[in-house]
């Protein structure tokens, strides 16, 4: 194990030295360790962490920060519309580590983790389906929850919620299932 693993002592120290993991500053979110790699650093970092014992990628999801352009991020991280959130788990050290990767709206692509953590196959398909983020070199990037011919990506913030009109209801103002605005 490298010396960069966060320990409780390091996190609660009164004047903490900036702890880094593979050259990236380790930030704290409600007591949980978070790293903010760039898209270029992402795959290499996950590979190094895999060698460090983070053998399982338990979760991969995304957030559309369209409505929150000025959200707080560590220094040096450029806000982008999308954020891919990866939760890694080390069974050996019983620690978790979260990666938050900024993905711009103009080019919503990011490399796939499939070759390192094949368990992300379905999760990346879900993120593609729900957010339209394309995972390059993914073996089977198709919609997973929505039908093949669906338009738009439902979990984007500019995608209307919509509702199905209730039959025989006096309230006829309910809109039909909405597509993208």
């Amino acid at each position, binding site marked *: 194990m490298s010396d960069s693993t966060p320990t409780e002592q390091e996190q609660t120290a009164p004047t903490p030295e900036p702890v880094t993991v593979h050259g990236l500053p380790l930030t704290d*979110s*409600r*007591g*949980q360790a978070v790293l903010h790699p760039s898209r270029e650093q992402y795959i290499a970092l996950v590979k190094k962490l895999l060698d460090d014992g983070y*053998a*399982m*990628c*338990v*979760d991969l*999801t995304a*957030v*559309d920060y369209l*409505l*929150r352009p000025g*959200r*707080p991020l560590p220094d040096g991280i450029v806000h982008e519309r999308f954020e891919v*959130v990866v*939760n890694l788990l080390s*069974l050996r050290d*019983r620690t*978790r580590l*979260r990666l938050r990767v900024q993905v711009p709206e103009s080019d919503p*692509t990011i490399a796939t983790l*499939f*070759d*390192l*953590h*094949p*368990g*992300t*196959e*379905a*999760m990346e398909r*879900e993120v593609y389906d*729900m957010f339209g983020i*394309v995972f*390059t*070199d*993914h*073996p*089977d*990037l*198709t*919609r*997973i*929850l*929505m*039908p*093949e011919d669906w338009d738009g990506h*439902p*979990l984007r913030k500019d995608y209307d*919620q919509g509702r199905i009109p209730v039959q025989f209801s006096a309230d006829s103002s309910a809109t039909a299932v909405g597509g993208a605005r």
Partner: protein
Amino acid sequence: MSIVDTIRSGNEPEQGLQPRSELTARELLREVGSVLRMSESEAARLGEVPVDAGDDQTMIINMGPQHPSTHGVLRLMLELQGEEVLRCKPIIGYLHTGMEKTGESLTYMQGGTNVTRMDYASPLNNELVFSLATEKLLGIDGDIPERAVWMRMLLSELNRMSSHLLFMATNGMDLGAVSMMIYGWREREEVLRFFQKVTGLRMNHNFIRPGGVAADLPDGWRDDVLRLLDVITPRLDEYDVLMTGQPIWRERLQGVGIITEQEALALGATGPILRSTGVAWDLRRDQPYLRYSEVEFDVIVGSYGDAFDRYAIRLNEIRESMKIVRQVLDRMPSGDYRIQNKKVTPPPRARIDESMEALIHHFKIFTEGFKVPEGETYVAIESPRGEIGCYIASDGSATPYRMHVRAPSFVNIQCMPHMLRGGLVADAVAVISSVDPVLGEVDR
């Protein structure tokens, strides 16, 4: 043409299993190789994939989405060569109702009603993980009253029992032990009857809420739990007679749907599937939440990673849960069942009659909800099916900016192609059953 260009041009690829003639050997080997964490050439040397089988030798058939053994609306596309399964692809989404999108418009107070409907076989664990994530964002995760914490443990363990009893029933039904279906359902009903007494509902309780639980335990709850344990203990021994030691049952399950430790870790499988490969990983012990560090229980592991191990693990986990429930009975403290924080939980009913301020707080909480500080967090607990996680990103308002649930079934279902490869189509039913997916959680 790269995948990016294909998608930009508006021609999205089809979801289904591609015929073999449209695949290259590289694509086939990549799937196997990456799961084993080895290169394609090493995977080829293993010879697990008969890459030379042509289209005229194989047949793609659909199993589901309306098939009794798929536990809902799971559709499996199987590529068969005779009776042998060469490849398989689970197709999901038939039960997708956009619960994560819905969660963005419900307040934290209302969120429980949404998440409890995801894994409908263990609703209380869903509520628990959502509540724990919300409490972590609020910064009150250390202030929850002891009684609420122990009540949550009691309900979570009873829910694990009812969920595994349901597995016993459906697993028996799938494999032809039809009487087991009736027995499993009968025992589960005993647990659900207790839930009904406590929460008012058999399922989808919305009982565990941010700040504690919705109500105190009813009078006589202790006798009810003891009676429940007394009823179920001998019946588990009957299951052993009916199934565990029975030659037909063992023949049907042993050596079927084998998955290795390496594959399970690579695929992100958790819960009984991971433990069946011999990895002793249980979040209740390894990353304790609530007061699991204060109770005694064993983590059940298997050694072969087959369907029989997964059955035996679940059966014994019921026994371990009963052990925990007995300890909870001994240690259940008295006190409040929810935090007395007027910004998070409604005031006691009696206060509303005498205090204008209490009335206002009550009104505000139920109309506007409570505001949660900006931030993001991921909380994971051990549900009967594995690690259920809740990722909430808050923007400081009363509704989550993004609410994501890491559903164990959704991830575990990816193990099926690897468990089924090279097996017989008749064993597919046993394998699907042993993964124990709940489709409400898979599709969300």
